[in-house]
Every structure is written in C-alpha cells, then in structure tokens.
C-alpha cells in the first residue's frame, strides 16, 4: 500500500535533491545503514540515495540495498526525495549524515 502512495506522490511532487559528505570514520557500514533506513521509513516520501548526482539511485528504505552501496568516509551522499513530507524527509537524512549517525 505504501508503494502505491509513493508512486502516486512522485507524480504530484517534484524531486528535491541535496547532498552531504559522510563524516563518520567507517562510512555507511551496517549500523549507519540501519539508522538511515529506519529514519527513511518514518516518511511517506520516496527517498533515494546515490554516490553521484546522476545516480545510480538506491532505495533508502531498503537496508540491504543501502549496505550494498558501501559508501566510504569522505564520500558525498546524494539524496533524491519526492512526496508530501519530502522536505522534512530530506532534512532528516541530511541531519543524520551531518552528525555522523550519532557515532562520529
């Protein structure tokens, strides 16, 4: 049911994008991946991330896919968000990265 809403939302809402540099020492390893997906799941918006502004894009709500990105420290994480709560979702993602997922 969530997927249906997300795809409907993406037709109505524009994509919002922003990026942030990974500051925590181990990058986007297991624990930060879990935190990121948990946070992403709290929003209705479709949230994707990538290591480059042109993608490839990864579903930020999938813990397995996020871990497979294997983003190292110093990498720039790009976010692409669309949905009714897209702005709040984007802000929450950026805040997580900026404070090193609470472990920096």
């Amino acid at each position, binding site marked *: 049911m969530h997927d249906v809403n997300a795809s409907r939302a993406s037709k109505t809402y524009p994509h919002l994008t922003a990026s942030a540099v990974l500051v925590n020492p181990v990058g986007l390893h*297991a*624990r930060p991946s*879990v935190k990121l*997906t*948990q946070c992403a*799941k*709290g929003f209705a918006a479709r949230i994707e991330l990538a290591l480059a502004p042109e993608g490839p894009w990864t579903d930020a*709500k*999938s*813990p*397995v*896919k996020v871990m497979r990105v294997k983003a190292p420290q110093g990498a720039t994480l790009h976010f692409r968000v669309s949905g009714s709560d897209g702005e709040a979702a984007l802000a929450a993602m950026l805040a997580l990265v900026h404070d090193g997922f609470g472990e920096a």
Partner: protein
Amino acid sequence: MSNSGNVGIVIVSHSAKIAEGAADMVRQMVGNAVPLAWTGGDPEGGLGTNVAGILEAIELAWSPAGVAILVDLGGAETNSEMAVEMLPEERRARVVVCNAPVVEGAVIAATESSGGSPLSAVQRSAEEFYA
C-alpha cells in the same frame, strides 16, 4: 509493550552463542522496537536445535503481525518447520522461515519490522541477501 505490533524475530542456530550474539546485534543495531527471541543448542548444552526450544522462542517473540524465523543450517530449518507445523492453526499462517543468512537476515528483518512493515515485507527484505 509499545513494540508488540511489529513483526517478531526468532533466531535459531545450532550454537547458543551464535543465536545469542545475533540477538545482541539486533538489539544494539536496531533497538527495542521489535519482539525478539533466540534459541540454540541441544538441551544438554551441546550443538543442535530442538523443536521445544523453537516453540518457546516463537511464543516469546509472538506478535499479532506474525513472526519471522532466521535459521542457520539443516536441522535448524527442519526443526523450525516442524515447530511451525505444531503451532495452533490460526498462528501457523503468520510464521515464516526465511531463506536468509542467520546473522545478517536477523538484523535486516528486524530493521524492516521496526518500521512497521508487514510480515511479507520483512521476509522479502531478509531474503534480498540471496537475491
């Protein structure tokens, strides 16, 4: 408890240490938002799994949203399937044995569950490791 609505996670390993350690990882990485139980070893303290222990773990982690079981090798899977068979009929359809690695699968399943996802999504997410 506030977490009782989320899908429960059961960890079944031949080794009690592995099962307990995997449960520790779930608690530390995902938090307390999911019902969680583990079982491992035979009643004498050696390696193995047993149906009674698995049934107990399912009971501990029970949630109206269902329970996802993560297993390691052979007997863990067959004993888990046997335990599911022995559940009351109304519970049987709400328990799945995931085809996923036990440690990683448990963390991912719990992550999915902590977001309030239904049992099918929890299973799908854990099984993405072999996809």
